[in-house]
């Protein structure tokens, strides 16, 4: 894990026998289509006009996401109001109960966690100054950053941290509370240090702590009720809430007590809810807003050619895949899945369906994710495909239906190409299109044969994605609703969770990715980036691979 020089003492720990994977009341599940996915739901109606409902839709050659920041030379100017056009409007601001883009990327300007993920995808200490880990990997001590105040001027203490994380971990309805499952107890050690005792050695813990759900609030909401508190929230973030229309526009103003001296540069930020893709682009071009999220891939090349707009494709922890339901006898046959993988020309599919914005798929880990490995995959080879199918129980082909969400034009296009590319194998594909809400109900009930769907890691540690997609019993989704079950891969996932040595962990994840690539329980089609566009007068804007952007460094020139 990206540690903090001098403060981390990460020591390898012996793997304890018999890991308990679930804590009381919490089901240990993992990543999925979370934010993007929910975003689609919130805009499902947009199918009318939206060209590509995928929030993040694609990726191109951007090597690091800090590129955006580096392009912004000059001395920061103070002042101004930023109008930010986004695809979703927030519904509420409680960190522990949020998962939708509009909620998450509003509240993270108001509340901050102990660690955050920077645009390069590394964990950096934030409200914590650093941390230490005991030799058994079960006791984590966080030293709080001195001098941090809430927006009401009161200092942040260890009691606030204990309250906040305990609250997030204990919230049964918290969409991401599972990330805190390893916490056995939390206690304040004085006013500036917090000790977390884990039920088992847990390598991803720092990453778990960095999730927005674990952001720090005043203890007991400063004596108010939760609803009164979240109506006028108090946090340590660079901005505070000025006004908020549920599901609509939000205005934030500078937090005068912000702990980074001289920041934020902006006086205020207005998040404008603009659901329609064309509207977002046109409002940017007309100057009504200065930055927009979720630029549709169809418009990327035109905007890149437009000198009045800066466009950047930030790599994300997201991947689009074809999934096979192994309860269908054909897909339980490994040779069939491999044959299909060989028959698909993935680079061609990625290019055509994302307009060249996304890199073609390989490993099921996205390249921006820690421990990604460029493992050999079953790349396009029709004779190998035919040979694999000949070895299967269905040498002459079969038919199946491919489920897609009808609002997602990228997936519908991919499904149509797949339909064509499987014809030479004698495999007949019928397209099954459902609107997004119905699509979810169908696949979560295993009521599908094959589907195209997106997976997203929420944190910098790949364990979330690995256990969600590989660990059939304990991952929370029966290997992303496929029933893919490879005991040796599962054993490696478990091992990696308790392995604190970076090189050894990397080797374990490389093995996992290699096994999955050969088993082909799902096939990665592309890695969609988060695409943002902004006016050249905006400086210092960058997005991390989780899709989060911090605004304290942003200024208007």
């Amino acid at each position, binding site marked *: 894990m990206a540690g903090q020089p001098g403060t981390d003492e990460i020591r390898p720990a012996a793997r304890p026998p018999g890991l308990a994977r679930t804590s009381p009341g919490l*089901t240990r*599940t*993992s990543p*999925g*289509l*979370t934010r993007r*996915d*929910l975003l689609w*739901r*919130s*805009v*499902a*109606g*947009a199918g*009318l*006009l939206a060209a590509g409902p995928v929030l993040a839709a694609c990726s191109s050659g951007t090597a690091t996401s800090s590129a955006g920041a580096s392009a912004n030379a000059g001395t920061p100017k103070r002042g101004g109001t930023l109008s930010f056009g986004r695809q979703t409007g927030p*519904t*509420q601001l409680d960190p522990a109960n949020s*998962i939708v883009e509009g909620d998450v990327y509003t509240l993270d300007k108001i509340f901050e966690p102990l660690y955050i993920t920077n645009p390069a995808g590394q964990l950096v200490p934030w409200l914590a100054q650093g941390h230490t880990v005991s030799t058994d990997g079960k006791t984590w001590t966080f030293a709080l950053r001195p001098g941090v105040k809430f927006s009401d001027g009161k200092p942040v203490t260890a009691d606030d941290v204990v309250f906040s994380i305990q609250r997030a971990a204990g919230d*049964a*309805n918290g*969409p*991401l509370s*599972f990330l805190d499952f390893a916490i056995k107890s939390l206690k304040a050690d004085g006013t500036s240090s917090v000790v977390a005792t884990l039920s088992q050695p847990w390598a991803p813990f720092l990453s778990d702590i960095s999730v927005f759900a674990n952001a720090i609030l005043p203890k007991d909401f400063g004596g108010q009720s939760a609803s009164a508190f979240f109506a006028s929230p108090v946090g340590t973030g660079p901005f505070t809430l000025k006004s908020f*229309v*549920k*599901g*609509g526009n939000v205005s934030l103003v500078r937090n005068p007590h912000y702990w980074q001296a001289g920041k934020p540069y902006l006086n205020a930020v207005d998040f*404008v*809810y*603009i*659901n*329609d893709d*064309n*509207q977002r682009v*046109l*409002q940017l*071009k*007309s100057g*009504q807003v200065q930055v927009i999220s979720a630029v549709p891939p169809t418009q990327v090349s035109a905007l890149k050619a437009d000198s009045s707009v800066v466009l950047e494709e930030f790599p994300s922890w997201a991947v689009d895949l074809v999934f096979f339901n192994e309860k269908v006898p054909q897909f339980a046959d490994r040779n069939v899945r491999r044959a299909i993988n060989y028959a698909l020309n993935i680079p061609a599919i990625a290019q055509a369906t994302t307009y060249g914005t996304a890199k073609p798929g390989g490993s099921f880990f996205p390249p921006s994710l820690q421990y990604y490995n460029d493992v050999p995959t079953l790349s396009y080879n029709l004779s190998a495909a035919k040979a694999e199918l000949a070895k299967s129980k269905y040498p002459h082909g079969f038919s199946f239906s491919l489920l897609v969400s009808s609002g997602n034009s990228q997936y519908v296009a991919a499904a149509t190409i797949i339909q064509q590319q499987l014809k030479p194998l004698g495999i007949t594909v019928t397209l099954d299109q*459902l*609107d*997004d*809400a*119905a699509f*979810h*109900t*169908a696949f*979560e009930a295993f009521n599908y044969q094959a589907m195209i769907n997106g997976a997203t890691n929420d944190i910098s540690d790949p364990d979330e994605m690995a256990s969600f997609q590989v660990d059939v019993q304990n991952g*929370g*989704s029966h290997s992303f609703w496929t029933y893919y079950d490879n005991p040796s891969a599962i054993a490696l996932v478990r091992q990696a969770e308790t392995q604190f040595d970076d090189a050894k962990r990397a080797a374990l994840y490389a093995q996992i990715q290699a096994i999955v690539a050969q088993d082909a329980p799902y096939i990665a089609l592309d890695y969609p980036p988060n695409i943002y566009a902004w006016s050249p007068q905006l400086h210092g804007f960058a997005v991390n691979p989780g899709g989060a952007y911090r605004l304290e460094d942003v200024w208007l020139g």
Partner: protein
Amino acid sequence: MLRYAARRLAAAVPVVLGVAVVTFLLLRLIPGDPARAVLGIHASPQQVAQLRHQLGLDEPIYQQLWSFLVGLAHGNTGTSIYYKVPVSSLIWAALPVTASLVAVSAVFCVVITVPLASLAAARQDRPADHAVRVFSLVGLGMPSFFFGIILIIVFAVDLHWFSVGGWGTTFTGHLRSLVLPGLTAAIAIAPVLIRSLRVGMLEVIESDFVAAARAKGLRGPRVLLAHVARNALIPTVTLLGINIAYLIGSTVVIERVFDLNGLGNLMLNAIGVRDFPVVQGVTIVYAIAVVVINLLTDLAAAQLDPRVRLR
């Protein structure tokens, strides 16, 4: 007339109730689970079941329908599952946007229709008439989302006369935001009205009393406005009423294109996350609006035509 209006309103109750019940049942027939939309993909089946229970979604349909109707009878449209606030507060926030849009488009309709139809009728079968008829054909055939985007690019992005989208924060801001969507909606409806009014005027022009008016020595424009238009207007007013009711439906697309957070956008988003109470609430508002506009149309027609008796 008041008694007539009261009776018509009373007769509207079963209509609105019918719409409410049908919407309620249709929503529950389509697949998709609001609890899932709230909890996200990580939620365990137990969590989903718990929330469904909390929301009363695990009760038998007839029981849910009954509580919905009882609530409705008390003027309570329920609480949004997704936004967790009363549906009525969401509707009240969105209603002014949609209502202003409909009003502005209706004004544009009239402003476009009356001069063009008069021109066409007065210059029957001459170039002006043909031009108006071609214009109305083009307007009729142009999809509103396409025409709207053209207007945005020309008048908002290039010329900066109006805002690209959104609702603005001041009264003039609202007006600036409503011109283009209002025009877009009006262009889709005006052709029908122009044709109706033109044909109506032509019929009246042939009639004896117009000939008599001309024989008295009245000038052309005065004959056209005072005698012809007044009489030709009656079927057009009825048609306008029907089209405003239709317009309420088409605002759903127009609000999306122009980024107006009115009832249409509210309903589309609610359908996407299966926010049943919101969809039901908005549908009821639409139903009431259509009933009221039809009633107003009939009242207006009666005012214009003394032969019409309202009983």
